[in-house]
């Protein structure tokens, strides 16, 4: 019977392949591969009864990957992460996007979600404090006192858009504190976020710029810099020059019934996570309330 | 023909004006089947020369090459002692003194008829005073000047196109089957204008056609093309009376004869035309006594008889001598070439009749002519 079955199977397979003309065979193979992949992906989504959907601000993406890896090892749960700018993720959430948790790049948006009834205030806390850095791709451009910034000896200084990007706002506060805003105004080039500001500086189009310190710890950056063999120069902006960049996370209504959401919430407050976060270029608030 | 380069300085030295064309053009690769044109002729530098042949024989390619529109055409073109092209020199189309009328209407759609005429006039190398008015009058287009091409009929468009070509005052007028795209009634409408053109224009005209009728009416000289090669060339009357000319096989085989208008027979509405071998009665024509007429007689309209018997309805009979017989074993029809006076006739009869009547070279016969066309 088994043999018969195999023969039947083989002949069916042969008939199938011979009916597909040689010309179409690669395309048929490709379609089969794609549909198999699709099936596997869909199956994987449903096989884990408990999976967590997290919306994360882009600037935290490098750190988040390390955190998720650690969390998944500990719990064998599956975490699905969507990255985007905090503003976009916020807009998606209030329009019903299926996220359980939101890690914002600021404090304002999570608070707004609480106020709008999309989350509970008891499940909001500051998971990281962003640190601002003045960075240049040129290793001689910035000294410990950032004297070139202060003397105005540059054509462009890049920053994230201060209207909505927390690091952009911090950069403006810093320039204000240094009394440089008026003199530098026409030289400010704004990226929509710190990632773009980073790009402006990295490509050399802006001599220097304000970005998140965490960006200089990113994996991608290391690889790039090793290949191009430059490290640039930086000045870590003293905390006193700008108001703290509080990055809050909040458990959304959807996640409140999920045990895994609570688990992740607790994980983020724990020592392991705190240590990963602080090694990634953030400060960690000691005050958890 | 290796025409030496003749500059303008030699223009007057050479007495007879000719159009000397020696061209090769290969359409390899792209067009299938591959086609090549190889022509080496010297044409009269005045009057109408027909370039005759079936479609695909290379007529239009030859005309385009002479106009400089085929950059790949190699060889030489010398028109009335003016060098247009040789192995080292190529005068671009816009510098050749030509008027070109394309097969299909080619007026500029964004200009009115008069705009189209002005376009040509502005760029003419010389401008004879009063020519515009004369050309407009000859082509009968004065009432069409304000119209756009889209508001003209096919025949009207071609008349404007011809007028436009004339207004450049070319030294050579090239007409590429200007009637081909028109229906029969439009053709009839435009042919008189072409005849007027022939009488009035003092430029040599090359007229591409595959219609024996048009050639018979308009041309003085003819070259016959077949598969890109010249297979016959000469005065129209001569070429038409050559029986071995490849084109003279089908329906259109016939001769073209010159005659004189003799008398008028008003009670029968007939006219008498004198040929060198006798008179012909034809449908009444309006001409003055002594005027030259051109008469076309098709081979299929001639039957042969051994006696001068007068018991049939056929009016026209000419006594002839058989000077040649062409027959082919597998064909039912044979061609018989006849001489009457100084003129030649070609009759198409069955091979069976040929043998039944025992017709051979040198015999005297009567040619009964069923129909005659006055073509000019």
């Amino acid at each position, binding site marked *: 019977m088994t043999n018969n079955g195999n023969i039947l199977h083989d002949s069916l397979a042969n008939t199938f392949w011979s009916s597909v003309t040689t010309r179409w065979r690669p395309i048929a193979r490709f379609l089969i591969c794609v549909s198999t992949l699709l099936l596997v992906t869909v199956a994987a989504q449903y096989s884990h009864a408990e999976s967590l959907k997290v919306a994360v601000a882009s600037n935290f993406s490098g750190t988040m990957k390390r955190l998720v890896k650690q969390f998944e090892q500990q719990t064998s749960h599956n975490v699905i992460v969507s990255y985007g700018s905090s*503003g976009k993720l916020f*807009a998606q959430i209030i329009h019903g996007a299926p996220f359980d948790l939101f890690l914002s790049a600021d404090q304002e948006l999570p608070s707004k979600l609480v106020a709008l009834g999309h989350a509970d205030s008891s499940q909001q806390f500051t998971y990281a404090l962003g640190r601002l850095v003045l960075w240049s791709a040129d290793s001689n451009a910035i000294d410990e006192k950032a004297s070139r910034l202060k003397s105005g000896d540059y054509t462009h200084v890049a920053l994230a858009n201060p*209207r909505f990007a927390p690091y952009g706002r911090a950069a403006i506060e810093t320039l204000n504190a240094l009394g440089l805003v008026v003199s530098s105004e026409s030289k400010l080039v704004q990226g929509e976020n710190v990632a773009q500001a980073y790009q402006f500086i990295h490509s050399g189009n802006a001599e220097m710029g304000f970005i998140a310190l965490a960006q200089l710890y990113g994996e991608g950056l290391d690889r790039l810099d090793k290949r191009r063999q430059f490290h640039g120069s930086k000045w870590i902006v003293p905390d006193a020059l700008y108001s703290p960049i509080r990055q809050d996370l909040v458990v959304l209504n959807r996640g409140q019934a999920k045990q895994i959401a609570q688990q992740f919430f607790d994980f983020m407050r724990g020592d392991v996570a705190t240590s990963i976060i602080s090694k990634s270029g953030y400060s960690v608030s000691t005050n958890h309330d | 023909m290796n025409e030496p380069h003749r500059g303008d300085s030699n223009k007057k030295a050479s007495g007879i004006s000719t159009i000397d064309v020696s061209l090769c053009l290969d359409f390899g690769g792209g067009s299938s089947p591959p086609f090549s044109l190889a022509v080496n002729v010297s044409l009269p530098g005045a009057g109408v020369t027909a370039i005759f042949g079936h479609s695909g024989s290379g007529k239009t390619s030859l005309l385009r090459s002479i106009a400089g*529109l085929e950059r790949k055409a190699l060889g030489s073109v010398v028109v009335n002692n003016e060098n247009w092209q040789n192995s080292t020199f190529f005068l671009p189309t*816009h510098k050749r003194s030509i008027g070109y009328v394309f097969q299909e209407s080619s007026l*500029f*759609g*964004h200009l009115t008829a008069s705009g189209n005429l002005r376009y040509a006039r502005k760029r003419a190398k010389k401008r004879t005073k009063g020519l515009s008015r004369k050309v407009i009058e000859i082509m009968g287009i004065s009432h069409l000047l304000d119209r756009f091409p889209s508001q003209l009929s096919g025949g009207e468009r071609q008349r404007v196109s011809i007028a436009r*070509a004339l207004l450049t005052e070319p030294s050579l007028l090239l007409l590429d089957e200007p009637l081909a795209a028109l229906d029969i009634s439009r053709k009839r409408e435009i042919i008189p204008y072409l005849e007027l053109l022939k009488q009035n224009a003092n430029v040599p005209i090359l007229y591409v056609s595959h219609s024996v009728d048009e050639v018979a009416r308009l041309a003085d000289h003819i070259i016959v093309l077949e598969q890109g090669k010249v297979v016959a060339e000469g005065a129209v009357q001569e070429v038409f009376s050559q029986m071995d000319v490849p084109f003279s096989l089908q329906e259109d085989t016939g001769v073209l004869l010159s005659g004189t208008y003799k008398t008028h027979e008003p009670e029968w509405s007939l006219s008498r035309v004198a040929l060198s071998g006798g008179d012909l009665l034809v449908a009444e024509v309006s001409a003055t006594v002594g005027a030259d007429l051109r008469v076309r007689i098709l081979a299929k309209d001639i039957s042969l008889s051994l006696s001068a018997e007068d018991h049939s309805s056929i009016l026209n009979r000419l006594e002839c001598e058989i000077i040649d017989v062409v027959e082919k074993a597998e064909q039912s029809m044979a061609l018989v070439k006849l001489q009457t006076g100084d003129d030649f006739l070609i009759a198409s009869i069955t091979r069976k009749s040929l043998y039944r009547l025992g017709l051979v070279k040198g015999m005297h016969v009567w040619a009964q002519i069923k129909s005659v066309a006055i073509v000019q």
Partner: protein
Amino acid sequence: MINFSPEDISAIWLTLKLASTVTIILLLIGTPIAYWLARTNSKMKGPISAIVALPLVLPPTVIGFYLLIAMGPNGFVGQLTQSLGLGTLPFTFGGLVVASVFYSMPFVVQPIQNAIEGLGDRPLEVAASLGAGRLDQFFTVVLPLAKPGFITATILGFAHTVGEFGVILMIGGNIPGETRVVSVQIYDHVESLAYGQAHTLAGTMVVFSFVVLLCLYWFQSKRGGQWSMK
């Protein structure tokens, strides 16, 4: 009802200035390219067509990314502009013009190319037989006969530049009055949750685009093939 802030008005003005400049430049350099593409048998026709059409398929971020690098101080365009004493192009109006010219190129070249191809050889042959040289042929025959193609190209080139966002975001640096165009301004409004202002500007843009396209289709149906060779 419509209440634009001074920044919005500055962005609108800048956008119109950019689109007009780019359209004029594109007509000047796109026309010879289109003419060449329409009439050549060269083997380079394929590669050049592909380069011209690239912006149709590439995401604006890819174009912006490479333009940022190419026009930067270490890129080949940047080296060139620096050696000419022009500095570097990113974050300047000139930079936006260069990027937009590249990005909107197919929208100008293709309608003109199609229109010229549609004319065929005949009108040029006729003009040549009447004694018109190359340039004469272009201005007196090609230009008027292919006019609908040129008008379509102008409208599309202008509208597409107005609607450009991704590339400008990548190389503009969001400088008010210099590189902050309407689309970027709308993005800023949305990102900063100023939905009211975003609506005003975005709604204006929808109406503008609709009217432009309506004019285009109306024009095309009215003019469709009217001026052919007759």
